[in-house]
Every structure is written in C-alpha cells, then in structure tokens.
C-alpha cells in the first residue's frame, strides 16, 4: 500500500482506452479505494463548485513531461464553505497537490482527501473513508 506518486502512476496505472471522466458518488466506499492512496501535483484546469460534490480537474505532468488530466472530487460545496473553503482558493492555473484515494475502476479519478493550495495552505476535502454516506 505504498503511496503512489504521479511518476509511478504514469507507468503503473493501466488506464482504459476511454478518457471519460466519470462522476463521483455519494458514497466514498462505492467509488474509491481506501487502500489506494495517491498524491498528485499539477495545474488546475477547471473547478465546479457543485453539490453534492465539488469537482476539479488537474493537469498532472509525469517525469517524461507528458500530461494527463485527473479529476478530483470533494464534499458538498456548501459544507466546504462552512468549513473554511472559499471559491477563490482554487482557480484554473493554480499549482496544487492533492492527497486522496484512487477510484476503484482504474480511471483517472480520485477523491481529494487533502488539497495543498498554491500558497501552501492544506485544506480538507471534506470526504473521508468510513464516514457514513449522505
């Protein structure tokens, strides 16, 4: 259960031929694997402040310089704002690092457990393993 890095992922994760970005799910356990933590860094390309999950996408560059797009999900927008998030914290072109858990289906989707913002602040993504589904 070693923590994967973007570099390792680029070579180790087998992705399907489809590049679709699947939707998240109310239940962490349904979509994400708590035994597959991941840390990825890159530039934000888009952010959706939606309910029941905030989504954002990040261009992740591997050691060879090739870029893959990842989608991350967090908790509900209104819950996150009440826990300290602001919509101005996460913008396209921001360079961030995400600690999360990989989707079970092998797609380039992960749950964002923590987000380290471009200014160094580390924010909770508001979804945690073992928490009851809402």
């Amino acid at each position: 259960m070693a923590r994967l890095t973007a570099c390792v992922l680029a070579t180790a994760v087998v992705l399907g031929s489809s590049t679709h970005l699947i939707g998240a799910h109310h239940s962490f356990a349904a979509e994400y694997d708590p035994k597959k933590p991941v840390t990825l860094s890159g530039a934000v390309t888009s952010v959706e402040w939606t309910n029941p999950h905030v989504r954002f996408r990040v261009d992740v560059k591997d050691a060879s310089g090739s870029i893959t797009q990842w989608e991350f999900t967090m908790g509900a927008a209104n819950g996150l704002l009440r826990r300290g998030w602001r919509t101005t914290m996460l913008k396209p072109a921001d360079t961030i690092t995400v600690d999360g858990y990989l989707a079970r289906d092998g797609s380039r989707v992960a749950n964002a457990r923590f987000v380290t913002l471009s200014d160094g602040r580390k924010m909770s993504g508001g979804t945690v393993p073992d928490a009851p589904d809402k």
Partner: protein
Amino acid sequence: MMRTAVAVFTVLLAAPALLAVQWPEGQAAGVPRNADGSPNLGAPAPRAPNGKPDLSGVWRPERNQQCPPDGCPDNQMSEHFLDLGWGMKDGLPYQPWAAALVKSRSARNGADDPTSHCFPGGIVRLHTYPTYSKILQTPGLIVVLSERETTYRQIFLDGRPLPVDALPTWKGYSTGRWDGNTLIVQSSGFRGDAIWLDRKGSPLTDAAAIIERFRRVSYGRMEVEVTVNDPKAYTRPFTVVLNEFLEPDMELMDFVCLDISRDAPDLIGK
C-alpha cells in the same frame, strides 16, 4: 502534558480546515453576543411582536455522530439521520413488511434513498438532514426554507383545518397552533411510497399523521418532539426528540444536487 500537546498537534494536522473561518464572515445584527463577539446561544429565546416565541432564524440539525479519525466530513450528521429509532431500546416499531423493507434497503446502503436521487426529504428528515433551514415566522404562517433541493414548507397558523383531500406531497400539509411556548404542528397528506424517515429506509405511508412540538428552549437551541402515527407501517405511534441549533451568522446556500445525474450509474450503494 506533552502527550496532550502531541495529541492536539496531531488533531490539528489531521483536520487543517477545522480552524478556518466559515463563509460568510461577519456578524449578523440583533444577535445577543458574548464579550468575545461570539453569539450567546444560551440567552433566552426571543419573542415575536405578538408575544409568541419567535422561531425565526437559520437552523441546522444536531451533529452527534462521531467523526472518523481522518476528520469530519463536509456535513457532519446526527445519529437520527441514519436511524430515526436511534436511542430507542427496540428501535422503531415496524410492521413485519416494513421491517423486511428496511432490511433490504439497509443492505443497499442507502442507494435507493430518494434524497440520494435529489428528491426532497420530507418533513422529518428536514430535522436531521445535515443541511440548513431558515424559518420565517408571521402570526398566521410559518415558512421553512430548506437548502436541501431548495424547497419550502408552509405551516398555516390561521386556524384552518387539515384538508381531507390534499394532493399527496413530499412534505404533506401542515397546520399549527400555539400551546403556551410550544408550537404544535399537525401534518398529513404525504406521498405513500416515496418518503424515507431515515437513511436506513424507515418508510412513511399515505396513512401517516405527524405531530411536531417545536419548543425554542434557548436562543441557540430548539427541541422538536416528533410523533409519527402511521398504522400501515408501524405497530404503534412513536415519538422521537430531535434538536436543532441556531446558526445566527450563517446564510442558506443552495444544495441542489443535480450534479448527481452524472453519478446515477454508480449508485450501487456499497
């Protein structure tokens, strides 16, 4: 001492956003406050101009569910959200068919919960769903605005009787009257096959009559005693007491989960 300090530091590391400031920042006017500016939630319940207790304000359900070690999720929940019979010795008094239904719904981990599919939650779940509601009170009408799917509820205080032929709806039809400091609300006219009382799937049928007794016990807390009389689904009426807490500096934020349409294929419940 050192152990305590390490433990505190660990908690802070694990939940970095907990110390952040909620949105919106700033203080609402007209709220009793402590010396440090925080709301004095233990102050007496306010009165409306007509002398009745004033239930107005932004309210949220209780948050008594323990958070996992990783920290609390975005919207911390109450135990009653998961199981309305929480704390009852034998749980809710299900009819046999209802007990079997709850068992099958529980096995799917809430995948069929109407709220998971962005339908409204019904009036009982308004007291437990971890989103916020805003009560607007006038002498003849109380309106409850809910973030959850951006819905409303009306409670008529003008003396009208409950209609016998109301359109069956998610929230039913509600009338209320004051009994001293308690607002007694009776409701009926519910959809018969779609309302869950909790995440485990406790049903509510079209035979249901619900009585709620609202009592604002302090500035910051409201007690809601809910009695459900639904002989189709339950062997006897049952009563639960739910707490709601005022968020005086908070505003409603829409929770329209249309986003879920992208998730529908994944609603497998495990």
